[in-house]
C-alpha cells in the first residue's frame, strides 16, 4: 500500500497552491473569527429609535430626558415632527417611534409616552417590549404620572411572511455567487472559439437573457409557494420585481467579474463564496440594524443588498409607496450600473491577458 508517494504528492500540491491554501485555511478562518467581534450584545441597544414630541408644548429638556432614558436599550434619534418620525419608521431608518407628551416635570400631570413599531418589522416585535418595559420602569423618575403605551402601526405580518420577503433577495444572491459562476466556468473551454466566431460580449448578452428568464422563473416559483401558503407578500408588484431584477443583475455582475478576473480559478470561486457569506452575515437580512452592535449597523448601511431588502420588504410586505424609497431605488440602479462596469472591466482584462494555457 503506497501511501508515502501519495503523501508526497499532497506536499507538491500544497507547494503549488500555497496562495489558495493561505486564503482558505488561514485568512478565511481568521476573518470568520474576527467577524464574531461584530456581535456585541443580545439586547438590541443600538437599534435606532425615533424620539419626537407629541406637540409643540414638549420642551427640549423633556425630549432630552426621554432620549437619555431610552438610550440604554436603543440608539435614539430625535425628530422634530411625528410625521418625519413615522416616515423614517416606514423606511426602516428607525424601528420604533417614541412620541413624548408634555408635562413630564409637572407634579400631578398625566403624560403619555407612546412607543409605535412597524407591524411588518416582525423581528423587532419582542425587542420593542423590552424598550417599553424599560421606559415604564425608568419613567418613575419623573414627578408626573407617566403612562407608557405600545402600539403597532401598519399591517401586521407573521415571521414566515417577513422571512419570505427577505428571502427573495438572498435567493438571487445565492445564484449570483454560486450557480452563475459555476455555469460559465463549465463552458470556459469554448470561450476561445466564441471569441473568434463571435465575442464574449455576445456570450454575456445571451447569458443575461438566459439568467433573466431563469431568475424570473425562480421568483415565480417562490411566489407560487407564497401564494399557496396565503402569505400576504406581493411578489408580483412591478417595482418589487424591478428592484429584484436590478439587484440580481448587480450581484451576478460582481460574481462574474471575480470569475473573469481570476480566470475562473478555484481562488475565484472561494472569493465568490466569501462574498456571499459576507453579504449574508453583514447585510442584516433578518434583524434590525444595530440589533447586535453599532458596528453591524454601520456595515449594513454600506451594503447595497441591505437597502434592496428594505425596499423589497417595504413594497411587497408592507404595501408602501415606491416614492418612500427613492434614494434606495437610485442606489440600486447605481449599484447595478457600477457592477456592470466592474464586469466589463474584468472581461477586458481577461481578453487582454490572452489565451489560457
Amino acid at each position, binding site marked *: 500500500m503506497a501511501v508515502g508517494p501519495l503523501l508526497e504528492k499532497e506536499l507538491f500540491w500544497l507547494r503549488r497552491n500555497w496562495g489558495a491554501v493561505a486564503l482558505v485555511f488561514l485568512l478565511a478562518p481568521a476573518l470568520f473569527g474576527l467577524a464574531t467581534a461584530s456581535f456585541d450584545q443580545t439586547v438590541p441597544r443600538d437599534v435606532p429609535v425615533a424620539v419626537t414630541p407629541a406637540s409643540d408644548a414638549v420642551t427640549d429638556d423633556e425630549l432630552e430626558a426621554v432620549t437619555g432614558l431610552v438610550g440604554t436599550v436603543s440608539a435614539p434619534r430625535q425628530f422634530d415632527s411625528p410625521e418625519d418620525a413615522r416616515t423614517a419608521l416606514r423606511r426602516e431608518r428607525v424601528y420604533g417611534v417614541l412620541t413624548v407628551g408634555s408635562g413630564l416635570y409637572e407634579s400631578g400631570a398625566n403624560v403619555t409616552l407612546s412607543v409605535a413599531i412597524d407591524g411588518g418589522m416582525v423581528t423587532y416585535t419582542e425587542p420593542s417590549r423590552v424598550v417599553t418595559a424599560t421606559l415604564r420602569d425608568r419613567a418613575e423618575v419623573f414627578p408626573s404620572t407617566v403612562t407608557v403605551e405600545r402600539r403597532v402601526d401598519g399591517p401586521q405580518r407573521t415571521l414566515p411572511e417577513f422571512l419570505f420577503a427577505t428571502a427573495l433577495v438572498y435567493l438571487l444572491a445565492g445564484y449570483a455567487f454560486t450557480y452563475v459562476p459555476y455555469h460559465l466556468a*463549465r*463552458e470556459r*473551454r*469554448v*470561450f*476561445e*472559439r466564441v*471569441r*473568434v*466566431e*463571435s465575442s464574449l460580449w455576445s456570450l454575456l448578452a445571451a447569458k443575461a437573457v438566459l439568467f433573466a428568464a431563469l431568475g424570473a422563473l425562480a421568483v415565480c416559483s417562490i411566489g407560487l409557494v407564497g401564494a399557496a401558503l396565503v402569505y400576504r407578500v406581493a411578489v408580483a408588484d412591478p417595482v418589487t420585481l424591478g428592484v429584484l431584477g436590478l439587484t440580481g443583475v448587480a450581484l451576478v455582475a460582481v460574481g462574474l467579474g471575480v470569475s473573469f478576473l481570476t480566470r475562473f480559478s478555484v481562488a475565484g470561486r472561494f472569493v465568490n463564496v466569501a462574498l456571499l457569506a459576507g453579504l449574508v452575515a453583514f447585510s442584516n437580512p433578518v434583524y434590525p440594524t444595530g440589533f447586535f452592535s453599532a458596528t453591524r449597523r454601520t456595515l449594513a448601511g454600506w451594503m447595497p443588498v441591505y437597502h434592496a431588502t428594505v425596499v423589497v420588504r417595504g413594497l411587497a410586505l408592507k404595501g408602501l409607496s415606491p416614492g418612500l424609497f427613492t434614494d434606495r431605488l437610485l442606489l440600486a440602479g447605481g449599484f447595478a450600473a457600477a457592477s456592470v462596469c466592474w464586469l466589463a472591466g474584468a472581461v477586458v482584462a481577461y481578453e*487582454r491577458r*490572452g*489565451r489560457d*494555457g
Partner: protein
Amino acid sequence: MDEIRLDGVSKRYDGVVALSGVDLRFATGDLHALVGPNGSGKSTLFSLVLGLDRPSAGTVHRPEERVGSGFQTPSLYPDLTVDENLRVFAAMGDAGEEWLGTVRTELGLDGVRERVVADLSGGYQRLVDVALAFVRRPTFVLLDEPLDELDDAARDRVVGFVADYCEGDRTVVVSTHHLDAFGPSLDRLTVLADGAVLYDERVDGQEEYLALYRELVA
C-alpha cells in the same frame, strides 16, 4: 483583403520571446503547413492571427471575414451534443444545412451526433473541434494540431477533407507534428524554431521537404 499577413511580428510573455520578427503570408487556395519543435511559437502565432492576443511588435493583417479555427485543446460546449455544437457555430455563418451535413459525414461524426461532447473520447472531441472550424465554410481556416489523438482512419478522413477544402480558393493553415500525413496535398511549408521563421517556401507536394524539415529542426 484576401490574405493573412504578419509583418515583423514579435510576441513576448513575461520576458520570454515567443515570436521574433516574423514575416509571413497565408495566401488563398493553399494548404499551408506550419511546423516546428515544441515551444517554437506555432500556437502563439495562431493566437495572434485569430485575434486572441496582441503582438508586442509588428502588425497582423486579417481578412474581414472571420477565420475558422481548430484549437490545440478542443474548444467545445461540453454539455451539448455534437449536433448542437455544430448547429450553434454553423448558425454564425450562412453555409447552410447541406454543408453542415457534409462536414459531419466527411469527418465521421454521424454515428455520434446525438452524444454529449463531454462523454466523447479525446479523438472524437478532436474531430468535433476540427468540424467546428469548417461549419461556416470560411475562406481561411487555422487548425492547431488537428491530428492529435486520432486513429489512422480518422487522420486519413481529416487530411482528405482538408485537401479537398483547399481545392478552390480556400486556405487551410495547419500546425502539426504529423507533416508526412499531409503529403502530396501540401502547397507551402513554414518552419518555425525559437520563435523565428527558418524556412518558408512553396513545396507543391514534393516530398523533399520532409528531409529538409528534419534537417532544419534537428
